[in-house]
């Protein structure tokens, strides 16, 4: 097509001068290629910092690879088969999912409630809206430091408060359920406000006349919330579910810093009771220098997230088409 048109142009009588023809071609190129050129930087950066590490990690995972000394020989899928029979891997996976559920479900529900409150005509609205985002702005290391002290076994405030109502002190790092609750509270504290703001933005675009007609029909606040607000912001809810899943499965900083051993020695408690997948990856790769195994964990995590993302996507589509 292009070729014939070009030829036709060339065959046209030499009435048009060379310059406009040149400009014409430029304009066409412009329309065709400029969009690609403009998005190219993203793909170049993605290629360097996203795709290349991804593929290189895959390559490393097929080898016995020492972090310092490098390649020690090809293993094929050896790392993966070992991983599947590694009880520590399954333990970490279980912890990751438990922490994910414990932190995400209440978090998103709380965010929904918070957004509904913020959506009402409050005084000093900007102040409250900025306020809920504040926990998210604070560095995770600082949050972890403060929470680790709040949940201190001997002198922590949480235990002190529990003591006032007669609960004996809890060793928050020793018990599985206690440590999961403590870490989840940290995650919730950081992300609830952020999600609430997303919901709030979505709620504000819900047409007000829908609420008015519902009120005329005599619907209660509770009813309008669940029958109008929530269905209207469903795409946003789905978006937060997907992003929370991705973040949740990669949970690292909060539990790692909750361990008093910190980034260097922490393995998620004395019996790995709160070691997540990424923590296990970090331990294997950067403390035990088994980069090949660590890369295999990274790929398993990637596949897991990909599977859950696809499931989420399917679910979203189904719900969206129902709505």
């Amino acid at each position, binding site marked *: 097509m292009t070729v014939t048109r070009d030829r036709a142009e060339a065959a046209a009588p030499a009435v048009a001068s060379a310059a406009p023809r040149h400009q014409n071609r430029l304009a066409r190129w412009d329309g065709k290629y400029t969009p690609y050129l403009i998005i190219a930087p993203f793909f170049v950066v993605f290629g360097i910092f996203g795709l290349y590490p991804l593929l290189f990690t895959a390559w490393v995972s097929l080898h016995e690879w020492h972090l*310092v000394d490098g390649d020690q020989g090809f293993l094929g899928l050896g790392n993966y088969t070992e991983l599947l029979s590694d009880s520590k891997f399954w333990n970490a996976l279980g912890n990751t999912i438990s922490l994910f559920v414990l932190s995400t479900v209440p978090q998103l529900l709380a965010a929904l409630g918070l957004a509904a409150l913020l959506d009402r005509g409050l005084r000093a609205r900007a102040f409250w809206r900025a306020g809920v985002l504040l926990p998210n702005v604070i560095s995770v290391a600082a949050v972890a430091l403060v929470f680790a*002290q709040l949940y201190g076994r001997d*002198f922590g405030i949480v235990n002190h408060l529990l003591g006032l109502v007669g609960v004996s002190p809890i060793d928050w790092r020793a018990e599985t359920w206690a440590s999961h609750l403590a870490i989840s509270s940290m995650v919730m504290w950081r992300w609830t406000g952020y999600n609430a703001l997303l919901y709030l933005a979505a709620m504000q675009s819900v047409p007000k006349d829908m609420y008015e007609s519902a009120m005329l029909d005599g619907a209660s606040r509770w009813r309008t919330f669940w029958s109008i607000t929530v269905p209207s912001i469903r795409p946003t809810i789905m978006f937060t579910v997907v992003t929370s899943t991705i973040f949740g499965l990669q949970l690292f900083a909060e539990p790692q810093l909750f361990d008093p051993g910190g980034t260097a020695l922490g393995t998620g408690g*004395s019996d790995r009771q709160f070691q997540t997948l990424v923590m296990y990856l970090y331990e294997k790769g950067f*403390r035990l220098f088994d980069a090949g195994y660590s890369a295999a964990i990274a790929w398993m995590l990637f596949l897991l997230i990909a599977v859950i993302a696809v499931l989420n996507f399917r679910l979203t589509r189904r719900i969206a088409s129902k709505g």
Partner: protein
Amino acid sequence: MRRRLVCSAAATLVVVLAAAGCGGGSSASSDGKIKLSIGLFSDFGYDNLIKEYQASHQNIEIEQRKVKMEQHHTQLATQLAGGRGAADIVAIEEGNIAQFRASKDKFVNLADFGAKDLKSQWAAWKWNQGTTDNGDFVLGLGTDMGSLGVCYRRDLFEAAGLPTDRAEVAKLWPTWADYAKVSDQFTQKTPNVKFVDTARNVYKAILDQTEEGYFAKADDAFIADKNDKVKQAFDQAAELGTKKQTAALEPFSQDWNVALKQGSFATTTCPAWSLALIKAGAGDAAAGKWDVTTAPGGGGNWGGSFLAVPKQGAHAKEAYELAKFLTSPESQKRIFKETGNLPSQPQVYKDTEVTATTNEYFNKAPVGQIFGTSADSLKPTYRGSKDSKVTPVFNTALQRVEQGKQPAAEAYAQALKEAQDAVK
């Protein structure tokens, strides 16, 4: 027409930016000084020495990089792996040196610069820890050493009806079994105070008094499953945990500092360098309450470091000269006076000025003498190249015992299995 103008403007901008970029690059390297970086953790006491070195070597500029100890070593491993980013001189702690000895091709052999001539400066065991290939490869020059004592709270001992004088306290515990007996007595009298901060450090102290721990001296083979000494040390430490006589703290953590301030434990194993940490944690209010005495089982060593030069640096010779200066006897003596870090060289730790040093905060304890005397006869435990992978496994096992999650025997069995996995 408009578009062409924009294009040429953009092109001009690109050229200008590129030119500016080039200009920036050339001016940075034009001051002609050699920049040396030195990667450290905690306080090596080098600030003043470095200032002086820069004054006497006008062409050298030195930058100190300090991170936490564990992070420092992990970071160093990745920098060596990546082939860039490591400082020109790096400190390596005694517990980690074996692991880096195994990757010696990433480091400069300091013998190439004549380091072997300095050998006689150090206590023989300290020199040997920093070398490999039967002494032909000099990986690092020794900085300080830890030695080992036990710190105890005088007021808490008095409350429990125990002697408080450091010579008499030393007589209470010639062996670790005696130490455990004192712990029982103490707990009976004052059940609300823990006798020791953590089982982990007692375990380490006992194990470090043996010649071989997890690995065989002869061939670096994993022998923890056959070595009775490991089991004995573990059982002795675990017993304290089972009886709830430990405060079950992560040593040197924030919680440990708080416990120090609250006076919730009465003794802690203490190498020379930990005096400063105890003082910082317990604060001025506890001045004179803490004291130091000899450790059960006849001394030992915990910690102390080496300065090594990674191969990836551009100025190996200059780096070596600086490391030599920082580890020289004169420098070590000054560091001891300024920070209390114990010298690893006999001519310094036997110097009357050092042996006469007392520590005001620790009830005027003669720290120079307490820590210096055991250094000569010291037989450091052999550290295998995978020691730093195995140690944490046994530490968490003791933690499980202290937390009451597992009986000692079960915890030990699990640790042994995990250790075998870690060295595979």
